């Protein structure tokens, strides 16, 4: 009951004119970014963060805007998957498999409607999952001391590569790169300069917003330049005809169990560390295929259930991924890491205390997610043709605009030439790392969490007077270590198989990094 009254308070926060407008703008932009190949949730949210700050939006309002974008991307990705067989972002990859065949059979409108409803169902129930599960997780998190927190951060890094990672050394390398960058600047505990080499620009450390925008947004621009891919996603009106949009009730009803199964799988995949929306949609699709079509007769040939499952899965995972981010302060996916950056730069520490210190932020956000979800349903079914038209904007116009907005964002918060150059440097670094198959999300997470991780380690050490065994000093800490070690080694054993399965279903074109 406590939860429900908090939620009611949340609605009071969310139902102001400004927040409703922000949710609508976020939902619209999110769908747009999701639909456009090359812009996904992680880089879409990344380029908007500095702009939120320059506008002086408060924490609740910023989060409402940005999570609406996040949810919106999960909806939007399906549009280009279904119509063009090009996933608009990574989580929408699996939607291509049955969505595009349906479109080729002239049922594009039906597939869009069905997947729109599926997205709604996934998000709606996942948001309820968030409401119910997050406060429970907070209760556990309140038992954490500094040592447990340090182990929790270690766990987050160990599992971030995800079960589909083939090279754990590269995930670990990426995390170390991020942590190493986080150490630059004044040490908060003793006040000494670290790794600044008397360069005044480095005294405050490297602003993680600069790193995020560079790594996610600018590196994407470089990838497009490298391949000279400047054409429009959709070439003419002919290959994007939508057809009738009304839902076909019997088909919709026939997918009800698919929705139930995929919501559960997607949500759990989202909550677990290191498994974002991409894995949620992959698992939902694979399980559904095993359950209803083990012989491969209809799946992959335009089965409506094959459209519903991944869409429910990725939207449910998106909601699920917010649970550890809000309640523990440890994100499990790229976009939630970026959202964590928003909280940190507004001086709000996520984690268990967030629920007691800033209940208006948490519950206002959750209420706004419910509202945004209804807005998204409206935007994505009756108004889907609007977004289809956007697919005809060629990337040769789009990508330079993305680059320029990145510059505008960074310039407007820092006004510094050095910071813009640093952002370009991160863009180049991101491009090289992507080439070498080094994941970018651990780098971001390292930069974000590095200082907290160190602070917790040093607190634990101070309490124990330098005795390292404190790190395995409680059953909770030992349990976390076990999960971390299993999470790190499991992919080494079974990652290659899973990865090749995912790769087999991946269309040729590259999709935006992060989910």
């Amino acid at each position: 009951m406590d939860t429900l009254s908090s939620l009611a308070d949340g609605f009071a926060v969310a139902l102001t004119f400004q927040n409703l407008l922000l949710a609508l703008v976020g939902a619209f932009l999110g769908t747009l970014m999701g639909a456009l190949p090359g812009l996904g949730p992680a880089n879409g949210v990344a380029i908007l963060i500095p702009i939120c700050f320059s506008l002086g939006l408060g924490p609740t309002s910023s989060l409402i805007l940005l999570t609406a974008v996040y949810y919106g991307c999960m909806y939007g990705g399906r549009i280009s998957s279904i119509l063009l067989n090009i996933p608009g972002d990574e989580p929408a990859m699996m939607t291509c498999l049955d969505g595009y065949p349906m479109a080729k059979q002239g049922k594009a409108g039906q597939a869009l409607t069905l997947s729109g409803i599926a997205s709604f169902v996934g998000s709606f129930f996942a948001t309820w999952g968030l409401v119910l599960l997050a406060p429970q997780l907070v209760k556990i998190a309140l038992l954490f001391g500094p040592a447990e927190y340090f182990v929790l951060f270690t766990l987050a890094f160990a599992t971030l590569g995800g079960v589909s990672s083939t090279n754990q050394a590269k995930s670990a390398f990426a995390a170390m790169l991020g942590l190493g960058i986080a150490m630059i600047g004044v040490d908060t505990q003793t006040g000494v300069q670290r790794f600044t080499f008397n360069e005044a620009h480095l005294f405050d450390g490297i602003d993680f917003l600069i790193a995020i925008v560079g790594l996610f947004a600018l590196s994407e621009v470089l990838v497009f330049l490298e391949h000279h891919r400047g054409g429009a996603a959709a070439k003419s009106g002919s290959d994007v005809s939508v057809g009738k949009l009304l839902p076909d009730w019997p088909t919709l009803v026939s997918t009800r169990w698919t929705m139930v199964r995929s919501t559960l799988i997607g949500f759990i995949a989202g909550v677990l560390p290191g498994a974002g929306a991409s894995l949620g949609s992959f698992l939902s699709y694979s399980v559904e295929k095993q359950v209803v079509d083990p012989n491969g007769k209809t799946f992959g040939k335009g089965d409506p259930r094959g459209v519903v499952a991944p869409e429910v899965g990725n939207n449910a995972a998106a909601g699920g991924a917010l649970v550890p981010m809000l309640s523990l302060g440890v994100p499990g996916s790229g976009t939630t890491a970026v959202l964590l950056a928003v909280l940190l730069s507004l001086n709000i520490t996520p984690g268990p205390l967030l629920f007691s210190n800033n209940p208006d932020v948490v519950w206002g956000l959750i209420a706004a997610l419910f509202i945004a979800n209804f807005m998204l349903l409206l935007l994505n079914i009756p108004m889907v043709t609007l977004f289809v038209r956007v697919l005809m904007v060629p990337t040769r116009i789009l990508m330079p605009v993305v680059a320029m907005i990145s510059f505008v964002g960074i310039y407007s918060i820092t006004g510094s030439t050095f910071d813009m150059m640093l952002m370009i440097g991160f863009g180049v670094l991101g491009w090289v790392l992507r080439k070498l198959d080094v994941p970018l999300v651990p780098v971001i997470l390292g930069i974000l969490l590095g200082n907290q991780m160190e602070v917790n380690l040093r607190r634990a050490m101070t309490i124990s007077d330098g005795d390292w065994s404190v790190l395995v000093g409680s059953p909770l800490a030992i349990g976390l270590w076990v999960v971390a070690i299993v999470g790190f080694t499991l992919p080494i054993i079974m990652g290659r198989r899973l990865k090749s399965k995912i790769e087999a279903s991946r269309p040729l074109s590259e999709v935006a990094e992060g989910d």
Partner: protein
Amino acid sequence: MSDRILGGFGLALAAFYIWAATIIPDSFMSDAIGPRTFPIIIGIVTIICSIVFILKPDVDPHWPNLSQLAELGLAVAVMFAYARFLPEVGFIIATSIATAYLTWRLGSRPLSSVVIGISTAIGIHVVFKLILGLSLAQGPFGF
């Protein structure tokens, strides 16, 4: 081979990092493990990862050829120049030129590149400065 180079680079970076960590000065405040321990742990883990890259490299990625590399290099140079000269020439002029260059390299025709460049700059100026009120770089002409 690429992974081996990455490994070698990682080793050099980690060695430098650990060295830089050992010269962190002492402070009048102190705690149990001090400001050097955690950076040194980071360096050691980086060394382990780098050795793994050298011993067990992945398949080489598809690197761009020389002309693609030049393409990227030039684009990065244009962006650096943009960052360098933005405060001096102002937002509209700098952005028009940079956007025109990028869209031209992505395949727009020269004349339409100029149009796209100018309209992007004006569009961003209208949305972000006039409507949203962000501060953009002001050049000698005030825009």
